[in-house]
């Protein structure tokens, strides 16, 4: 069985009386340690697929197995627990807590793990150093550039050492240079730390960082 295995996945959104089919019998396999770029036109269902793999949305039908767990069968609380152990999520708009410092933002996921404050701080500091922000621990998001904010978000995603990193257009809101830094960072996490990464992107250049590209069009994969 592949590390991430999606089979016959169907997702239909219900809006008022209208049924909006987004994913239509989609199947996909991603191996451990792969870096996959997910591309496709706007509205093709990329975010939807990523959310389903990350267990923050549930499929209408079909199975999703990630790292040996069939998450389509988990309850809400089980899923939350599974996410905190397995998934690191990176958003296009960083989504840091504005009232927390960089360090506190990165410590946040660790609150869900049994460890004391000192240990938490040590790990969060290490994660921030890894993304090159060891000198920005006490900064608030508004005191950081977009690229730096996104790197804090990456530190937050990897601090609890998840098996899979999911990134939804992580460079979509960044200038070329900051975007480049973020991509290099993701590549490094993939090669050096063996993280399995699925990244949604519109940018063909960004997609080149990945080992493999997957195209999504109208809810189905195209080669």
């Amino acid at each position, binding site marked *: 069985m592949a590390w991430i295995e999606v089979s016959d996945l169907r997702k239909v959104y219900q809006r008022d009386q209208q049924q909006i089919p987004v994913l239509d019998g989609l199947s996909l396999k991603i191996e451990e340690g792969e870096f996959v770029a997910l591309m496709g036109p706007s509205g093709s269902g990329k975010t939807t697929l990523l959310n389903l793999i990350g267990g923050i949305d549930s499929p209408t039908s079909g199975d999703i197995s990630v790292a040996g767990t069939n998450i389509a069968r988990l309850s809400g609380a089980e899923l939350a627990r599974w996410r905190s152990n397995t998934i690191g999520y990176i958003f296009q*708009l960083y989504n840091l807590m504005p009232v927390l410092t960089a360090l506190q933002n990165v410590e946040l996921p660790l609150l869900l793990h049994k460890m004391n404050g000192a240990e938490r701080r040590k790990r969060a500091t290490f994660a921030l150093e890894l993304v090159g922000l060891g000198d920005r621990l006490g900064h608030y998001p508004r005191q950081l550039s977009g690229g730096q904010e996104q790197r804090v978000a990456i530190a937050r995603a990897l601090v609890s050492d998840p098996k899979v990193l999911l990134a939804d257009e992580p460079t979509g809101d960044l200038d070329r240079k900051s975007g480049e830094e973020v991509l290099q960072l993701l590549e490094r996490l993939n090669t050096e730390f063996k993280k399995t990464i699925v990244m949604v992107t519109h940018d063909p250049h960004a997609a080149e960082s990945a080992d493999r590209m997957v195209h999504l069009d109208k809810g189905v994969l195209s080669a």
Partner: protein
Amino acid sequence: MLQLVLINLFRNPLRSALTLGSVLVALFLYSSLGAVLDSLQATADSGSRERLATRHAIALTNFLPYDYKDRILSIPGVKRVCTQVWFGGLIGGQRQRITQFAVDDDFWPMYTKDLQIVEWSEPQVAMSVPPDHDPHLAAYHAERTACIVGRGVMKKKGWKLGQTIHLQGTRYRGGWDMTIRGVYVKLPGGSWNEDLILFHNEYLVEKGMGGKPSTGVFKVELSDPSQSAAIATQIDAMFENSDNATKTESEQAFGAGFISMFGNVPFALRVIGLAVVFTILVISANTMVMAVRERTSEIAVLKTLGFTDGAVFGMVVAEAAILTTGGGIAGALLAKFGLQGKPLAFIPAMTITWATVLTAILIAIGLGMVSGFIPAWQASRLRIVDALRRVD
């Protein structure tokens, strides 16, 4: 996680402060209303169930002949009878919150468990006091114009033991000089507060009643308190057909009867208190709903990170509870320490029981829980995908 809750509380300090402030004011008000009730209750409770009070059947202000005392004493089971007359004098030309009673000698042994003489003058000549009297009352007994004063009055007026004070009579004409020969304190659980001046009934009878004694109330001590109902009936039966029929009830009921003069005031106060609490409930619920709405996407992120719906629920409720509990504790304690012992309208000294303070604080906590419940429920039900889409 508590830290996160606290940080969230401070993200909009003005709004938090306003909410906290309104809860504070509301619970201060609530506690103050409770204090009025407590004070009324304290007056009502300041009598024993084991003693009886006999007064004129028609009105509290009508007098009874003094010789009723011996006739009541003749009833089996009655141990002691004393008299008590409200004097109502002015001190320094003003009506003060200091009550004066003329009492006969039997008053003192009846209330040894209620009052204790803590300062006293030594008598000029060696005097023997009656066997069941406090020996410290010797100087008082030796002097017709002596008085015993509560410590509260002594402090308030700055009086000294041995000082002669001057009272201006109202219902009893003339000027009345009395010398302070003792100071009493209220014993725990005792009747009476420390705001009294007690003096000899003989002095009042001689100077104010033209030598013809009569009294407002007889206090009756029983050898067997369980007989109180039967004896009360017996006393009233004894005088039923006289010119001055009596009404006898327990000393406590006598106090409560005094309270009943205020009619529905206690009920009205409770309704006002509840209205205030309800208003604050709406205000703080509104604050929390706004606070949570602003944070929709942040809550979605927390959930993405693996915070469960329950954890999110708890955080929102905790935030609301801290806000209202903080305000509640501050308001209730402010009332306790700000009002305790202070005079208010017809109440000489406000009493705020810890039970009232505790109730106010519990109400504040409950307020937080209830006002936090709706936004907490919304936050916990929030679906990550919907919440995150809204931002894009």
